[in-house]
């Protein structure tokens, strides 16, 4: 039974390539107007899931629907209210920015007049209006990315899939695109954001699902996920001398599971922040060091991710794939 508040509903979705299971029976829902993050390392099944939801690929089994329309059996209807920003900026390089938008509008059944009006509005919003008559082959990476996002908005989609929208971009473009994503979501568009950038998911998403090896290992708000990671707490400390002590010394302190150097700071994963802070104070006294900064910020989404997926842990799996 379709819930009117549901934008996306996925039930037991499986995608196999021979013996390889890329997506292994995942289920989740995305509410209307939500900014939903789909997190996972490379090869976890994120893009495969997006490809199935957007009709690029077909599932082996299971079901998925968008606004109540099955993506396989009723794909035409499902796709009418959707658009996608794929991982690769796939605008037609032989076409101008303007022609790309006009073509996309026509392909989605938007009238020529409305497409032209919207194309102008989007090109101005994305600071590409002056380049509207330039062929895309002359565009920078950032400009292509912005154009592809504009193309995805030409039909005013109710659900927007964004697959790694900021990958490979310079800092300025990343900031601009993140701001655009927030604005689009504020306008009521449901955004399904696929990313392996945890910081990005943390600052943008209402809820996130973490997928690893084709299976969803957690779904919740970023803050709830951090709170749920009881075994992971963080103490950050900085001394007046940058070369104070070796990482092994700090890793051997009471309750510390792992010590990582972040510039002039040390980041200690601990099971007992209180015991660790006391030990650090003693350590500083013994070594004649002065503590210039100390903080217990709680675990980041990255810590939760490592805890849940095992990626990056000593003895855990690598982060590639």
């Amino acid at each position, binding site marked *: 039974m379709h819930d009117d508040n549901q934008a996306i509903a996925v039930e037991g979705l499986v995608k196999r*390539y021979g013996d390889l299971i890329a997506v292994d029976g995942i289920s989740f829902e995305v509410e209307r107007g939500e900014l939903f993050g789909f997190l996972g390392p490379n090869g976890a099944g994120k893009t495969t899931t997006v*490809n199935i939801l*957007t*009709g*690029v*690929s*077909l599932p082996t089994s299971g079901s998925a629907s968008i606004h109540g329309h099955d993506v396989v*059996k*009723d*794909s*035409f*209807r499902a*796709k*009418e209210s*959707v*658009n*996608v920003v*794929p991982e*690769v900026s*796939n*605008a*037609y*390089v*032989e*076409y101008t920015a303007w022609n790309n938008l006009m*073509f*996309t509008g*026509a*392909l*989605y*059944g938007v009238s020529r007049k409305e497409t032209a009006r919207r194309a102008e509005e989007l090109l101005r919003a994305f600071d590409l209006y002056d380049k509207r008559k330039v062929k895309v082959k002359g565009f920078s990476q950032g400009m292509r990315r912005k154009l592809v996002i504009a193309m995805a908005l030409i039909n005013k989609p109710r659900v927007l899939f964004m697959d790694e929208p900021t990958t490979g971009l310079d800092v300025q473009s990343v900031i601009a695109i993140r701001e655009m994503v927030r604005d689009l979501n504020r306008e009521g568009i449901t955004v399904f954001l696929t990313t392996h950038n945890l910081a990005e998911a943390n600052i943008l998403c209402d809820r996130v699902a973490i997928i690893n090896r084709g299976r969803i290992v957690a779904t919740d708000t970023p803050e709830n996920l951090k709170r749920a990671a009881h075994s992971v707490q963080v103490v950050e400390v900085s001394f007046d001398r940058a070369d104070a002590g070796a990482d092994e010394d700090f890793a051997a302190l009471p309750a510390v599971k792992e010590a990582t150097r972040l510039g002039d700071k040390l980041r200690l994963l601990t099971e007992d922040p209180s015991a660790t802070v006391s030990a650090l104070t003693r350590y500083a006294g013994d070594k004649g060091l002065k503590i210039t900064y100390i903080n217990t910020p709680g675990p980041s989404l990255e810590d939760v991710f490592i805890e849940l997926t095992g990626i990056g842990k000593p003895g855990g799996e690598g982060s590639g794939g």
Partner: protein
Amino acid sequence: MIGEALSPERLGKEFRRSLVIAGKDIRIYCLKPPVLLFGLIFPFFLFLSFYVGKKGPISEGIPGLVCISLFFASSNIAPAGMPFERMTKTFSRYLSAPISLTWMIFGKTLAGFAFGVLVSLLPLLFGVIGYGTAVTSPTLLVLALLVGGMCFSCMGTLVASMPTEMPGNVMTVLNFVRLPLLFMSGIFVPLADMPGWARGLAAISPLSYANDLLKRSTGNTGYYQWWLDLLVLLLYTLAFFTLAAWIFNASRRRS
């Protein structure tokens, strides 16, 4: 949902979107080097190389030139475009857009068809204006261009259904099919002058039937019945398109 897919409103939407795809393909791919080389230049020089030194009037060869142009140009657009679109990931734009795979393929096929028919009009005008080629049956001529163009374009779409990102691979396969067909279809040697085994081979080539129709339409004697020419071309069109759609669907299932 099958009923909805066949509703006039839905069919209208899908048809309009397939025209959008066809229009885009014509604008983007007509001037691509492989299209110009294999669609225009190659047929023209191939024809010249066979007719230079021949004793008969050149106007007799015009139906053959029209047929070669139609054959090469119609079958060229999809194979030149689709691998490139897979490589640049623009192909996935169609799959995520509200248009069914069948109508998307139809749009791609229409582009080849339109390009082929337009290109074939050039040698026809060249023959009519320059060498006095007479069009004795305009109806057969139009049917030959329309049905032949669609048939060859579907053949190109079928070859383009190969799931590869390398345009060169598709062009190689396409020419591997096209060149033997060219020499066994009665274009350079009339079917009536061929030995029995060669006529048997010619009977399996769709090009033989298109060439036969074009010959008839310009006052020459045909080898097959005109209705048989049309029927065989239509059957080939249906077979090529159905097979192409099946392969595209299977590729999507595997992708």
